[in-house]
């Protein structure tokens, strides 16, 4: 087998080893990756920044621990930004594996800002059949969620007085890792006309770009880069996504190098024949 044929048919274990080294080394080498902000992320930031004290925002934390690395930083940053401005949050977790993780996140951020459940935020928790839950909340939050995650009646909460459905929230920012994003667009925005922005995983971002020009969503944060862009705008102390960008950058470079190696081997071995 010629050198170029070997280039084309590298044992995959070499690929795994190189990628493993590529993602491990940046953890020990301090450097930062410059992040340029895209308009679709800026529009989410500008919207949240325009909210006033006492406004209500709905945040949907609809993901599970598998995609925590990408979506948790954007959830954290937005929640901190809202609490710092005095915006009241209604939070749901419509992924069956996510409520515990979402509760952990809500507790962490609420303790930082000394925010109280029922006064400053309302964590609704999980209900099955996300599509139906989203539709039901459009009529009344109390249909799927008569009580919050902790068993407290919504009617007894000061922040939920006069809050019936999406008409009383400024927008929905949904962090999604699956098809529930379609339900938010189709049902919450399509039927109830509430503004929706999405935070999705990197692989999903291309799927949801189509909703931006049609204004079915007013913003889109895609993957770790989207989270890093939001963090660069928010200028908070903790920037998880920004720190992880260097690992993603090196991993991408490694993948591109292997693609180039494979193609060079392919063309050179074709030429030799």
């Amino acid at each position, binding site marked *: 087998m010629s050198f170029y044929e070997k280039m084309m048919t*590298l044992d*995959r274990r070499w*690929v*795994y080893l190189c*990628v*493993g080294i590529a*993602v491990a080394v940046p953890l020990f080498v301090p450097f930062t*990756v*410059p*992040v*340029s902000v*895209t308009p679709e992320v800026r529009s989410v930031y500008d919207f949240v920044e325009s909210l006033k004290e006492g406004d209500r925002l709905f945040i949907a934390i609809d993901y*599970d*621990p*598998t*995609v*925590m*690395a990408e979506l948790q930083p954007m959830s954290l940053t937005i929640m901190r930004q809202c609490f710092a401005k005095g915006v009241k949050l209604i939070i749901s977790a419509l992924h069956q*594996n996510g409520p*515990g*993780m979402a*509760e*952990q996140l809500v*507790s962490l951020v609420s303790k930082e800002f000394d925010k109280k459940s029922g006064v400053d935020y309302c964590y609704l928790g999980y*209900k*099955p*059949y996300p599509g*139906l839950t989203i*539709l*039901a909340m459009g*009529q009344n939050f109390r*249909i*799927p969620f008569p009580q919050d995650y902790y*068993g407290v009646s919504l009617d007894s909460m000061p922040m939920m007085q006069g809050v019936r459905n999406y008409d009383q929230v400024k927008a929905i920012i949904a962090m999604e890792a699956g098809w529930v994003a379609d339900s938010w667009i189709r049902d919450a925005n399509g039927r109830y006309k509430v503004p929706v922005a999405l935070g999705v995983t*990197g692989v999903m971002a*291309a*799927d949801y*770009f*189509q909703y*931006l*020009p049609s204004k079915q969503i007013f913003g889109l944060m895609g993957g770790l*880069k989207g989270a890093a862009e939001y963090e660069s705008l928010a200028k908070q102390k903790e920037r998880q996504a920004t720190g992880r*960008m260097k690992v*993603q*950058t090196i*991993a*991408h*470079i*490694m*993948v*591109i190098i*292997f*693609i180039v*190696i*494979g*193609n060079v081997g*392919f*063309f050179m071995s074709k030429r030799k024949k």
Partner: protein
Amino acid sequence: MRWQIPLLIVLLCGVVVAVQYFVPLEELEFIYENALDWIIITGVFAMMLGLWSLFRVSISKVQNKAPGWGYNLITLAGLFGMLFLGYRVESLAEGSLFMKLFRYVYIPIQATMFSLLAFYVASAAYRAFRARTVVSTILLATALIIMLRMIPLGFLSNWNQVLANWILTVPNMAAKRAIAMGVGLGMIATALKIVLGIERAYMGRD
């Protein structure tokens, strides 16, 4: 009668919920609320059926010592362990064994499983992205442009961003919208077939 009653239930439920969706009167809200409750109750029974099925398959493999039966034993242990630990509301409290297992076992396992994808994607990209034909070259170039969005390239980043935006907002959007229209029309057709009793696969075999 065995066939007619389920078909009638499907027809009634489908028509009633569709009418309620397109006629959002407050007087009809009770239909919606009741339908949601019934769907959740039915879903719980479906979940119990799924649990029973999982239990039956796993127990059978353990009893017969089928290849890999140890994994089925771990599945059963995990299933019943978490069920037993998590059935009370107090299990959700900070520091409970249920939450510790969730945070320090389940979350790391899930994150690890997803992280393995990075290696598989790298290997698959190395093998699949070859410029063998014109179409595969276009695919390769497009993938490289989109991937390079994530990498700082200095002054080249601006050019790459313009190209990537064009790809996402023109050909990508056209294709995605066409697919979404097709899927939507397919869903309407399938839903109509089910409601009208033309499609009966959900009833199983006779």
